[in-house]
């Protein structure tokens, strides 16, 4: 069955735990857009949500840094402050992704023991349907160089689409990340919102394939190392035209919620 839904969501923890530095009205507008994702996910009656996210050096430390990985444990659990999350993992789909992904030439790492990163559970906090759906966490290395190239991420997304379309389950795909932000650097207060706006305009015209030609250096300069998760999704959705549900630039972060018809 072809994919039933595709979205990109931000995951900045200030959406979950708001410090006084954050504009409350802006945060609530992003929540509203994520609520629209929840409505659409529910209407799509997804059997499984496959999430592509970058690890924030939480599941993987410097003991092992996989470029691309799949979590294939029975449950995926993580915590942030007072929040505790645990999701069922859709093991048959997770395993199909590992086995068929490797068969297709992508040397995926896999794990059955990782604390789940907030890049996965922040979007799900706001967008998981009321009747919880099992997930499959897919990892793309974004913060520990050398990261996978945009070209490789795009090719992986295309291969992923082939694997998912062959499944009997109704699969929704979510990329978690971005847009421009520079946590921990001298650029924290000056994201590249021009890059974000040009990107969203291109995606609205169905020109997602152009992102495969970006370089890692360009992503780093634009505060968009996490765009690799979107580029992976773009490999899966092809020339579909993006619908921008919100773009809310805060003083340090371009919050974008986007949907694709699939």
């Amino acid at each position, binding site marked *: 069955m072809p994919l039933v839904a595709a979205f990109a969501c931000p995951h900045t923890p200030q959406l979950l735990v708001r410090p006084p530095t954050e504009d409350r009205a802006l945060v609530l507008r992003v929540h509203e857009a994520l609520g629209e994702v929840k409505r659409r996910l529910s209407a799509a009656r997804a059997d499984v949500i496959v999430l592509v996210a970058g690890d924030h*050096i939480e599941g993987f430390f410097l003991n092992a840094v996989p470029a691309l990985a799949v979590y294939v444990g029975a449950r995926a659990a993580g915590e942030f402050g007072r929040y505790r999350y645990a999701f069922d993992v859709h093991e048959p789909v997770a395993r199909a992704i590992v086995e068929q992904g490797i068969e297709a030439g992508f040397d995926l790492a896999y794990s059955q023991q990782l604390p789940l990163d907030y890049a996965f559970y922040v979007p799900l906090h706001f967008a998981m349907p009321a009747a919880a759906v099992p997930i499959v966490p897919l990892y793309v290395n974004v913060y520990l*160089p050398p990261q996978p190239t945009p070209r490789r991420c795009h090719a992986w997304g295309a291969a992923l689409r082939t694997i998912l379309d062959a499944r009997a389950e109704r699969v929704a795909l979510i990329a978690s990340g971005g847009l421009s932000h520079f946590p*921990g*650097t001298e650029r924290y207060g000056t994201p590249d919102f021009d890059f974000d706006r040009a990107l969203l305009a291109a995606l609205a015209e169905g020109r997602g394939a152009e992102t495969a030609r970006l370089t890692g250096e360009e992503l780093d300069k634009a505060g968009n190392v996490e765009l690799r998760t979107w580029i992976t999704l773009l490999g899966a959705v092809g020339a579909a035209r993006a619908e921008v549900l919100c773009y809310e630039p805060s003083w340090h972060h371009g919050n974008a919620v986007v949907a694709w018809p699939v």
Partner: protein
Amino acid sequence: MDAHYFFPPAAAFPLNRFLFALKSDAAVRARYAKDGEATMREHGLDDATRAALATFDRERLVGLGAHPYLVFMAQVRLTMDREPTTFEYF
């Protein structure tokens, strides 16, 4: 120009491992809040590193090879522990 998120130098591994622990391990944060100097020594950090951590000076820590994101989130988690009531929880 180096990337904002640069390759973590091997010499900075003890510092990055400590920042990772501060970010991800509530018990280490609690111990650090109680006795910072002893906690840093237990983690094998040298004099320059302990001095930079004492003021949590981002530029100095990154100059020592700390991953910028780890500096950022370790500080966020320490602040969340120290000032929980200043945050709004959704």
